[in-house]
Structures are given as structure tokens and as C-alpha cells.
């Protein structure tokens, strides 16, 4: 079945450093979505990318969707302690239920 892989599994950064997580799918995706889950919380929708090569920004967060629509990345500039949590990418081929990656857990050291 379809698989969505994320790297790294964990990332520890000093506050103010940048952070990037990468997502790769075994199949071409119709769209890619990103979610953030705070410790003890539930996933919260961040953004959806649909077009090949699409780049979207939300303040310090930059999201990219690969040209082949099989990979994506999330980059956070100048991390803050409020960025702590696990970031999940999720996608599926066609209009089918989302498949989530295992996530990247971000720790920010003040």
C-alpha cells in the first residue's frame, strides 16, 4: 500500500536556529497536507499544497511540494519555543483517505 515517509524522526535545535522536515511518498499524491501536534494534543491542520512545485508561506513556515508531487518539505526559520511539537505530512493518491507519515518531533532549546 501507499507509504509516506518522513525524516528526520527527531530534531533538537537551539532557539533561533532553522528547522526542516522532509516527506516522501511511494506514489504520486493528489495533494499534500501538513499537521502539527503539540505534546498531549491532537493534530491541527496547517496547510494543503495541490500544485506541482507549489510553495506556500505562513509567517516563519515555508512549505514546498515537489515537481513530481511525491515529496514535500516544511522549513521553519528562526525557531521559537512555541514551535515545539510533532509535524506530520499526510497525503493520498486521488480523493482517498489521508495517509500520515510518522512525523518529525521538534524540540527547541531556549
Amino acid at each position, binding site marked *: 500500500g501507499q507509504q*509516506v515517509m518522513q525524516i528526520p524522526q527527531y530534531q533538537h535545535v537551539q532557539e533561533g536556529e532553522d528547522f526542516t522536515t522532509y516527506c516522501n511518498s511511494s506514489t504520486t499524491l*493528489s495533494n499534500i*497536507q501538513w499537521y502539527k501536534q503539540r505534546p498531549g*494534543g*491532537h493534530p491541527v491542520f496547517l496547510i494543503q499544497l495541490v500544485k506541482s512545485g507549489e510553495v506556500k508561506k505562513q509567517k516563519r513556515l515555508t512549505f514546498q511540494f515537489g515537481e513530481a508531487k511525491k515529496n514535500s518539505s516544511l522549513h521553519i526559520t528562526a525557531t521559537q519555543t512555541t514551535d515545539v511539537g510533532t509535524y506530520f505530512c*499526510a497525503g493520498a493518491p486521488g*480523493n482517498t*483517505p489521508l495517509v500520515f507519515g*510518522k*512525523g518529525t518531533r521538534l524540540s527547541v532549546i531556549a
Partner: protein
Amino acid sequence: DAGVTQSPTHLIKTRGQHVTLRCSPISGHKSVSWYQQVLGQGPQFIFQYYEKEERGRGNFPDRFSARQFPNYSSELNVNALLLGDSALYLCASSLVEGQFYGYTFGSGTRLTVV
């Protein structure tokens, strides 16, 4: 507007027992999806319902079943509980079936099987 409501928030059950988890989607949302999240892992898809019909089923045993009611709320049932069923069960609400609009998750039901 109320968000996605799940009940109960926490539950402790014994192996072999049965459990029913409930979810009320956002008003106007017709699709409900159920996910299982084991500690340290990403959510795993269990079921998706749209307009009271099952639209997708993940790789879970027949002990897992679900249904959607006319008011679009949903129940997830798990029979003959195993220790490995201990997890956070998440309900996701979306406007339509599939995943083109992003999911809104409830706070989840944390199930512990002892």
C-alpha cells in the same frame, strides 16, 4: 461553532471487553474519519464515512467496526480488546469525503487496555 467532539476522553478497559467511541463532527461536515495513533507514531487510518456510507477502510481486523448516523455523528466499536489496541483514537471531520479540504481532528479518546 463547536469543533469536533469526542467522548469519552479517557477510557480503561480489560482485555476481551468491548468499547464504543463516539464522535460529533463540525456542524455541516458530512464526512467522518477514524484514526488510531499509537504513542510515537503517526495516525493510522481505520474508517471513513460519508453520508452514512463507508467510503474507506484501513488495514484493521474485523474486530473494528463503525457507523455514521443521520445527524452525521459516528461511533467506532472495537470488540475483543487486545493490549495492542491501547492508543489515542482520533476522529476527523471534513466537509466532503476524501481529503481535499483538510481534516479537523477532535481531541481524541485515549484508550488503555489492561
